[in-house]
């Protein structure tokens, strides 16, 4: 599992790649917690490259939503694969999370900015 974090002026985008399961869910939880502490007004998780998600992965996302919701901030998901979408539908998580078809739709509907955070080099990586 890999994660890329892009910071924009009014939100953070976390793009995940691979399988989100028991073995890396705690790491995702840490990333979400860290982003919450950075004070980001909204966190968008892009799941376009997530091929599998298990109950621990779902737990990490629920944790994220709780964390952001508590302080009146936005936590949203976008670009779910059909297999992930099926899990979300079956467990009725579709109603629980804000889910958008793709990143563009999420940014538009949540009225988020595409302007990178001050000094953030969106193409650079650490």
């Amino acid at each position: 599992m890999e994660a890329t974090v892009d910071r924009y002026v009014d939100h953070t985008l976390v793009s995940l790649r691979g399988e989100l399961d028991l073995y890396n869910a705690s790491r995702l939880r840490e990333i979400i917690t860290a982003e919450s502490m950075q004070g980001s007004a909204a966190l968008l998780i892009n799941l376009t490259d997530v091929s599998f998600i298990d109950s621990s992965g779902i737990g990490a996302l629920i944790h994220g939503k709780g964390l952001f919701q508590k302080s009146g901030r936005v936590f949203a998901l976008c670009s779910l694969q059909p297999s992930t979408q099926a899990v979300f539908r079956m467990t009725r998580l579709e109603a629980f999370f804000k889910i958008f078809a793709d990143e563009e739709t999420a940014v538009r509907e949540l009225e988020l900015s595409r302007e990178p955070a001050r000094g953030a080099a969106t193409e650079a990586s650490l």
Partner: protein
Amino acid sequence: MEVEERPQPTQAGAGPAPQSRRSSERPIFSAYEVGKIAVPVERIIAEELGGHTPVLTEDTPTLEVFELYRNYPRADFFPVKSRDGKIAGYLRRQMFFAALSQNDFTRDLLLKPNVSIGSLMDPRVAIIDAWTRLSDASDRLMAREEEIRFDPFVITLDGEVMGISSVRRLLEGLNKYLRMDMEACARAQRSLLDSPPLQKVENLAQTHVSVLPLADPGGDIAGIVELSERLTLLYLFDVCGKGLPASQMTLVIGAAIRSLFVEPVSADADLLRLGLSQRLQRFNRLVAEMTPETNYATGIVAAYDKQTRVLQLFDYGHALAYLRRGSRVFSLCEGLESDHSGEPPFFGISAETRAPVRNFQLRRGDLLMLCSDGIAEQKNEEGVDWGPRGICAALRCVDPDQPLDAALVWMEASWRAYRGQSRITDDRSWLFLRAD
């Protein structure tokens, strides 16, 4: 999970929050935690070297180190102190001999009596206080650069070098405490749930339940409670995650079922007056309060009225409930909607969660089947899930005239046939009820 981060420049250089030296303010809840001070010293080297680990200094002549490594062939690592007495680096046998053996010139040069090891040592030494939790120590060591990630490290106590240790020893320590916890949890689970380690099969009048943990202790819990002469309660919970946290939550659910449904305390008149829906709310609240907020279970609770054949189904985001009627199979949770309270639809995660409920009028001969997601998510040799479609196809072929344990045998056989040689990855539980 690897993280590629693209931070703002203002955050550059900001280190992790300082950790408290002693972690006694954090709750000790298991043998694993109690073992936090047991970062093991590498005894072999200490014993060979007379019960203490020599600490070199930057001024130690290379010739002396050469003799040390030659005389103690199992010694692999020595810490190096700077002139001010602080640990400044380390010197591994491999690094040392690699430097010596580059060519004859370097060997002659490095072994001159006036040459010291200052330039050979690696300054990236890991120093772990002996009070550090094993898990924290492991995190710190694994965060090192790749080429030194598995190098030995220095253990200090009150600022003094206590010894050296290796990642292997640390992982052995972690495993030991984890194993102790798992064994303790399995024992507790067996006593509480009255479940033998690998299989639990109960036969009641028109019901059948089977819980097959992948490993002991398990994360599934299923059972049947006769609430009254009329009313039978069926439950199946599948706790998220695996290992100790999952089995601890299973224990809490099991204990709560006992106290709320199996042996309700007669003095708790309020509880006995509650309807099923309210009692389930209390059940959920109890579990949510007693377990970490990151843990949850999916589950289904059903109450069957034998007189009217009405089945009341509460779904905590589990969805795997099927009804076989004649030759047709229906998914009972399809189309159920959450209560829109903004709470996750799962069990034990929020005190406010209310499961959506649906009533079904069963007919004589109807077969209800609940199962855990370990069954639905089992992959075949091509990596494809059995899924609800596979479950429905197999359930359609159950012989309606056979006893319910035969239904279990048939479903298990169908599941095994689908699985082929692929790995079993989860606990699996089945629960059957026939309306007679």
